[in-house]
């Protein structure tokens, strides 16, 4: 079973976003674990933006991508925005392949994510 660790960083010095750090690998063997780990957090999420920091994520497959898409739409329903930061090359390649980058903004760093949020209405 692939191993994954999720770390939620609140209180990043700003009121309007939080960061979720992913470390490890995400595939069909553990996507249910990720879902159950973040379900309540997403249900109660009240800030304007959410950043998924994937710097520590070494692998993702289509089921993991499907989960990220579901998070995006879940937040969209609550008028929240989401972006991805720091994805490694092999993860970015998967995102580019399935076209995820055309749906969810991806940036090299969390700072660029924050700047992008601040620039868009």
């Amino acid at each position, binding site marked *: 079973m692939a191993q994954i660790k999720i770390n939620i960083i609140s209180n990043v010095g700003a009121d309007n976003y939080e960061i979720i750090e992913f470390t490890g690998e995400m595939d069909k063997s553990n996507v249910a674990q990720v879902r159950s780990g973040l379900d309540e957090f997403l249900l109660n999420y009240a800030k304007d933006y959410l950043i998924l920091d994937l710097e520590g994520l070494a692998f993702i497959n289509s089921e993991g991508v499907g989960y990220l898409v579901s998070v995006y739409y879940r937040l969209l329903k609550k008028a929240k925005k989401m972006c991805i930061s720091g994805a490694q090359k092999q993860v970015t390649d998967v995102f580019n392949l*399935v076209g995820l980058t*055309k*749906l969810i903004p991806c940036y090299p760093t969390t700072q660029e994510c924050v700047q992008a949020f601040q620039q868009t209405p």
Partner: protein
Amino acid sequence: MDIFKKTLFRKAFLVLVVLGIIGGGIVGGFYLKGKTVLPFWVILIIIGVYLAVSGFTFFYFVSRPFSLIMKEVKAVLTGDKYNKIYTKRIDEFGIFSHFFNEAVLSLEQVKKDIKEGKRMSSELDIVQEIQRSILPKAIPSLPKFDVIAKTRPATEVGGDSFDFIQNNNKHFVYIGDVTGHGAPAGVIMLMVNALIHVFAEKFDTAREILINVNRILKPRIRTTMFMTLVMLEWDSVQQKLTYTGAGHENVLVYRASQGVCEINQSGGIALGMVDDNTHILQEKPISLAPGDTVVLYTDGVTEAKNSAGEQFGIERLKTAIEKNAAAGTIDDIFKKIASDYATFCEEEVQEDDVTLIVARYTGVDTQKGLTSTQW
């Protein structure tokens, strides 16, 4: 006193010691009074007390708990309702009671797993039947091309599908892969296949077909699910080949004159990810000379691993195509590529469906017999 609680032997020993002390005390008392022979009635009382205490001890410590345990064991064996055995004893009966409780718990779990396994197996049968019904049994002829297409499902249904559709002079060939497994993936596969057939009658281009498939599909599926797909569009009158990608694996084109295999990104976005993919899907041309070969595949091919955990990968696939694309007939080409793939994977269990479509442009119509699509 714990030492005497732990085994029946020690309990029996304790009882014998106590009885011995009592009996010895009675005999000693008579001896001290100067009587060397015990009266018969005293002997009877001593024997009676011994039997009563032994009998009671045996009943309380052995027979009664044994009956209780046997009652529950019989209930399990006959399928009747049984109860957990509650005891604070730590002797042999205590151990056996705890063993019984653990055993029935495991049995309950096994029964549950078997029931769940039967349900999932039944669901899997349905999905496999759906997949079998969608996939073409044999390859129709494609004008000016030799084509071979084969698929091999994994032990669990993985979501690969492909098909050949003709509308007058337009021939559409698609290969696709649904996220996830099981019945939901099977249903999406079925929906997409049906929608493609419907829209292929109405629209002239692969791009328009896929835009409309996505429009109908997106609101009807879960947000976690999508289908990657790439569709070739061959106009047999204009002799023009194009493709439209929806987030699928690369389109490989082997150039016979140079002996090299190009890797072309299929582009686009997977079906079911966005409401409207009109501005994202693009039609891209492929120019062909006789001998050039187009290869479509699913990620089950490139993500297959060997015993060292290495993936087959796009580079190995590219190398296999370059090495074998001039091998002879299209069947020979496929067999050699499949052989390189099998050699790499060794005996590793196939975790995902694998599908490969190889289409060699000949420039002439070849009357090729229909070939099976089973890998």
